[in-house]
């Protein structure tokens, strides 16, 4: 089975994240880049499927040059090779444009199964899996906390508010995973050292037959019109319990229309 895992480099959530004042895109220099956490679950799931069914795991990332750090981590965990889609023309792509660029690349490199994390910690749109499936003309099996493959049949458990749905389809397909799905492995030292020698193919937009006018800031359908820093948190209200703490708490919640 030919599995492609999409991974994204995101700013470390532990550091302060900023937008650039000039073009209102993410300031990638302001924070350390790390692998989007949910994507580690996607990599782990891909590795487990490969271990059970054989095949190959390819990492696909779209991002600037320094995103290779993210690729190395996925390769160190055990992925076989990587494709890095990197082109200045992609800077500022919105979700629609990203899905187009990624779909073009996926068509080019081929796949039986595409696995993604269900959202990224930076943009948090959570729509990429659905958009990719639509563009690729494959079934979308999103928000999976369990994946089973049997020949060309694939079944997942989709997490819902009320429990889970069982969703079945036939490969090729696109799957997005949630964090309950597994426990991602730590890269071993042997894996880290072997990652250096694994093949990373870098593609520009021309290589992947991506039309320049459909991507980047200019090709984006959505636009960041304005942004502002979150207001500092107001000081909290301290309720002193003088035997009536319960009533006071309830009054407070009622005043905010929580109850």
């Amino acid at each position, binding site marked *: 089975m030919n599995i492609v895992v999409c991974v994204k480099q995101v700013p470390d959530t532990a550091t302060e994240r900023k937008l650039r004042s000039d073009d209102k895109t993410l300031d990638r220099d302001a924070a350390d880049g790390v692998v989007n956490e949910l994507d580690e679950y996607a990599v782990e799931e891909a590795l487990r499927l490969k271990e059970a069914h054989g095949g190959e795991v390819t990492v696909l990332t779209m991002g600037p040059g320094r995103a290779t*750090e993210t690729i*190395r*981590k996925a390769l*160190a965990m055990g992925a076989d090779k990587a494709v890095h889609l990197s082109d200045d023309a992609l800077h500022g792509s919105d979700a629609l444009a990203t899905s187009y660029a990624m779909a073009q690349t996926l068509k080019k490199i081929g796949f039986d199964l595409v696995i993604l994390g269900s959202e990224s910690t930076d943009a948090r749109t959570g729509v990429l899996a659905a958009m990719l499936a639509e563009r690729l003309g494959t079934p979308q099996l999103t928000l999976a906390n369990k994946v089973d493959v049997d020949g060309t049949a694939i079944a997942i458990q989709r997490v819902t508010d009320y429990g889970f749905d069982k969703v079945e389809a036939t490969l090729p397909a696109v799957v997005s995973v949630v964090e309950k799905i597994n426990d991602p492995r*730590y*890269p*071993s*030292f*042997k894996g*880290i*050292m072997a*990652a*250096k020698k694994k093949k990373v193919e870098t593609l520009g937009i021309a290589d992947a037959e991506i039309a320049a006018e459909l991507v980047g800031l200019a090709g984006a359908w959505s636009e960041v019109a304005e942004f502002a820093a979150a207001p500092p948190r107001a000081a909290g209200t301290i309720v002193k319990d003088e035997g009536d703490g319960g009533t006071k708490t309830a009054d407070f919640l009622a005043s905010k229309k929580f109850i």
Partner: protein
Amino acid sequence: MNTPDAHDFLAVDHDLTDEERAIRDTVRDYATAELLPHVADWFDAGTIPDPRGVAKGLGALGVFGMHLSGYGCAGTNAVSYGLACRELEAVDSGLRSFVSVQGSLAMTAIHRYGSEEQRQEWLPRMASGDALGCFGLTEPDSGSDPGSMRTRARRDGSDWILNGTKMWITNGSVADVAVVWAATDDGIRGFIVPRDTPGFSANVIHKKLSLRASITSELVLQDARLPGDALLPGAEGLRGPLSCLSEARYGIVWGAAGAARSCFTSALDYAESRTQFGRPIAGFQLTQRKLADMLIDVNHATMTALRIGRLKDEGRAHHSHISFGKLANVRAAQRVAAVARGVHGANGITLEYPVMRHMLNLESVATYEGTEEVHALTLGQVLTGTPAFR
């Protein structure tokens, strides 16, 4: 110009390669998520309750014998090994000791001095953490002067018969195999002693006030009979065990920097959040002086470790370089731990904070693998040409 990062003030880690950084991050992530949450309880209990589980986890990463090549070992450079020691000891010296004893002492002895059969039999299982090893050199009456050991090995036909007691042996009572050093008619030799050897037993040493998240034991050899091929063929004389100790000491050079960093970080956080006399204690001049002194010690120790690591990878590390690092860094870490303990006030004496745990652990770290005096004498001998050990 950005303000320097308090946690790596001199940006020492900027000099690491991508691979070294990846190994550092893996050990740091693993140790923080899997070991740190339990270590205070283990220290409190005075043991590592599931040493096999800890060994399996560390083995899966590839920590054991990581700087050795072949036989299932990862084959990293010395700096990477040092970084792993630093990140483990930032959690607890007991965990770094666990790794030092397995990888630098027991595995290095077998890797360097063992026969091909001995290596094949033990190293892959020890690298994966499926088998645990220990290293028995010290005796009740023979510490800094190991040449005075009383444990004897004598021939009986093709077999060897060992008699004697080894003391303060890390992981002794949980090990599957002990590398035991004993005096023979031809000088000191090393032996591979499987735990089920008749006449061999191990007893846990209780009531320790230091390195409590570590198992320390006494090994007793009473007419322990070993086949002829239990002898390590490549090691003759004291040089054998001493060369293994030099490997483990190298890990301590880095480990001490980790313990110091942990104490400093905790003290900085605490000083910023603790308010007395109407403001954070970090705002007082006396506290700032302490923070500055700790910062200097931590960064000196880290630089020393990286410098010695680079020398080692270039094949230029003299045993006295390691003595320099062990003496300087453990002493620096002890200073930092004591000051950090004070900054935490009463909270500093509890296991809620890492400072007193490190402070107590460092007493063992200062003693084992050559005391401060022994390393000072080593440096003195190199400087003056005059040995002053006896």
